[in-house]
């Protein structure tokens, strides 16, 4: 109620100007039969102070990473979100603007998106990036929609080591696209290039993840080569925070690179909102979904930015559009831009090396055997002597969340725990985890 701005006097004047006696008259176009003849059954209005108190009480009932030492990852990571992000998120102009349809009103957000696109291209080694997809799942579906249009094949291949949620979303979307989904099982934690290549022979695209969901580094260049050789578009699902130390998908021949942007600049936030990124080789630019910002000049020849190649989009192309996406995840992607710019090339490399070093330490220090031999980036799958979910339950009683129970998604992995580290974990944190695991796995 407190967000309305009209006074009683305003209302009276306005009704007079309209020429009606009451607001009800304006609603006469709503047939009587479909009117709600009662008040909405909603809890009573709260003033700001009471509302704040109520919601704070809800928030207090969650166990967050500030109160529990957490090794949860499995797609969402607690990399450090620097304070410069607050500048982006707290500026009312960014926060309360919408899609920059009118470029003269929105040069700032347009320029920022252009910078974001550049950063995504640099990291992935690609030529073009859109201005964001919903998340790391839907951008994989977007990649399939592109592949469907540039190929006459009607299958997509997913490595089983691709994030299960990503695979689920692709499977939800695929029937509408007229695509069949084939999955290629892992072999000891990673994907076999030959097996993938074989499966790809009928496929429009192949999607694999680097580092993969089981915490292993895939032989990504070999996977991409196998897919390409089979005539399928190789699509890498990657983690931006790894790309200071891991090779860019563009450098090993991928056609597209997609991923979940959360790790770069967004808080876990119980799953969202975050941003999905999607980058491609130049040849696919007119098939990309969503907003793309381009550079041009204004009437005075001054550099200016604008949404471009809009003939791809739903508001122009309608049923022939490359996607239905409209509202996207711009603000979150700009938080990503700020974070990556704050890190710079050195910082990003350092984050990657911290992850590598800590993951190695996890392997060596914890009283559990690694489930797979392949090297890790920031996650390690470990065998547990009792069900991993039970290990989680017990460890949490000691104030430590030891990681993700892979049995949630993979059959036969009930005794596998996926432990994640980021640069925010320390040696001492891993030591503490080792202690707790020793205690609860006895």
């Amino acid at each position, binding site marked *: 109620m407190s967000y309305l701005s009209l006074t009683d006097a305003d209302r009276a004047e306005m009704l007079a100007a309209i020429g009606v006696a009451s607001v009800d008259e304006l609603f006469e176009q709503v047939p009587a039969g479909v009117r709600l003849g009662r008040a909405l059954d909603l809890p009573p209005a709260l003033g700001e102070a009471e509302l704040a108190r109520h919601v704070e009480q809800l928030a207090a009932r969650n166990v967050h990473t500030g109160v529990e030492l957490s090794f949860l990852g499995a797609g969402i990571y607690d990399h450090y979100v620097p304070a410069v992000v607050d500048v982006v998120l707290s500026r009312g102009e960014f926060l309360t603007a919408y899609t920059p349809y009118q470029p003269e009103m929105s040069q700032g957000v347009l320029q920022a998106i252009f910078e974001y696109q550049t950063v995504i291209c640099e990291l992935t080694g690609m030529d073009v990036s859109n201005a964001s997809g919903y998340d790391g799942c*839907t951008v994989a579906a977007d990649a399939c929609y592109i592949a469907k249009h540039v190929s006459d094949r009607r299958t997509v291949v997913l490595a089983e080591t691709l994030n299960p*949620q990503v695979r689920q979303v692709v499977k939800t979307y695929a029937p509408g696209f007229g695509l069949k989904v084939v999955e290629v099982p892992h072999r000891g934690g990673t994907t076999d290039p030959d097996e993938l290549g074989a499966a790809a022979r009928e496929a429009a695209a192949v999607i694999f993840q680097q580092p993969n969901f089981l915490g292993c580094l895939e032989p990504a260049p070999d996977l991409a080569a196998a897919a390409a050789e089979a005539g399928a578009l190789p699509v890498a699902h990657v983690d931006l925070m790894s790309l200071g130390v891991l090779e860019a998908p563009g450098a090993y021949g991928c056609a597209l690179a997609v991923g979940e942007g959360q790790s770069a600049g967004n808080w876990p936030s119980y799953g969202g909102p975050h941003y999905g990124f999607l980058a491609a080789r130049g040849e696919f630019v007119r098939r990309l979904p969503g907003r793309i910002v381009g550079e041009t000049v204004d009437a005075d020849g001054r550099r200016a930015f604008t949404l471009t190649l809009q003939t791809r989009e739903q508001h122009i192309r309608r049923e022939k559009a490359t996607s239905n996406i409209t*509202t996207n995840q711009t603000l979150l992607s700009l938080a990503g831009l700020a974070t990556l710019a704050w890190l710079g090339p050195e910082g990003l490399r350092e984050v990657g090396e911290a992850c590598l070093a800590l993951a190695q330490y996890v392997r060596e220090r914890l009283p559990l055997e690694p489930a797979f031999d392949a090297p890790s980036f920031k996650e390690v799958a470990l065998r547990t002597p009792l069900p991993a979910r039970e290990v989680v339950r017990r460890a949490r009683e000691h104030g430590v969340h030891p990681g993700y129970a892979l049995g949630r998604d993979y059959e036969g992995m009930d005794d596998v725990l996926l432990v994640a580290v980021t640069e925010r974990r320390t040696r001492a944190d891993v030591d503490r985890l080792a202690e707790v695991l020793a205690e609860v796995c006895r």
Partner: protein
Amino acid sequence: MISEPGRAWPDAPLLFERSRAGRRAGRPPQPGLPVPELPPGLRRARPPRLPEVSEPELVRHFTALADRTFGVDTGFYPLGSCTMKHNPRLHERLAALPGFRDLHPHQEDEAAQGALELMWRLQEMLAEIAGLPAVTLQPAAGSQGELTGLMLMRAYFADRGEERDTIITADTAHGTNPASVTMAGYRLEKVETDARGNLDLADLRAKVSSRTAGLMLTNPSTLGLFDEGIEEVARIFHDAGALLYYDGANLNAVVGISRPGDMGFDIVHYNLHKTFSQPHGGGGPGGGPVAVRETIEPYLPVPRVVREGDAYRLDSDRPKTIGRVRGFAGPFGVFVRAYAFIRAYGPALREMSEVAVLNANYLLARLRDVYELPYDRHCMHEFVLSARGLKREHGVSALDVAKRLMDYGIHPPTVYFPLVVPEALMIEPTETEPKERLDGFVEAMRAIAHEAAESPELLHEAPHGRPVRRLDEVRAAKQPVLRYRFEEGPALVEAG
């Protein structure tokens, strides 16, 4: 660095242009442990050319970019169909509470009861608002809600063994509707709008058949008009065994007044960033929950948020589900804001819609003598004017009017949409605007109409008071430059 002293908007260099080799802001923690070697070929060969900028310059950069961006916080933003209402700042505080912000989505349900309860309560409140019993919060935006809805239809009909391949939309439909139809694998059929701005019932009857899976409709329509025949429309579809989908983009007009479920819709999406005040963030994020009738509930995406006694949990054990449409249970931070918004109003949400409609009708009443009104009715929360008259008489287009509004410190309305109205100006003031802002808009629009006659070049060349003048959009599309080129790359990115 110095260009044109006295210019209000100095040029803003790109981050990459501010970059200097060896400069940096962040220094991540180092664990003091050996870094293992990577297998050959996996290590990055060439470092990414991220900008190298110090923190002070980074802050100034984003401050400067914000200054070149116009938001609701800057001024009036009557962008039709987008519901650019005030975004309460309290919500930013709430979404940033550590108990929400730092909560991992894989956290065990018993350690996320506050978050789950919030989602469950939000579902309940949204259900009451739509007049439909079951809600999924998962979809990321309205468009994804649409797609989800269409997938639900497919699952529903498949389960019943019916083969239906066509979705009907209005000719006034938003572009997302037909785009979603295609993405969902359906065939599109369009129905016309009649002279009062309602669906043409004759045309509709002719098109609905046993192949029809359903209708997608925005009501009030993108013309800002409530479909007076909605009951008959629903009857036609239901009689044909088809379903009705409600595009909730315009829900702001009817909350507490008329519920989509009561209108006869079977599936509804909400745009949390429109009706329920999630800030638009320069393009997003949004939220597109979907509500459905009992009969469609079994197909909703997983996970669902369910209540058992006093406990809440995520439930993925739904054999008939269409599956998952995005990660986790949805954009949780958006839910915090929507929840807070609804709790701030309570049942007085109705008043929100009443004022949204009052504000729109006030503008309509005060502008109808200078701009053409294609459908002569009271409007709902928005209305569409046509600049056709100005075009004919003075050669001034809707775009010219839009650009000139900028000089009056006002964000232009949506233009050239809906397609059925030539030179369309689609105006949505929202309920949070005070009368003075509305009057300021009226004055500006009237002044512009006057200028169109007196000095049309002022409008053709507008804007005059923004960081840039009108852009060469053709060049942007014909010679696309879609990333910074580091003084080395080709002018065109799209080589192929």
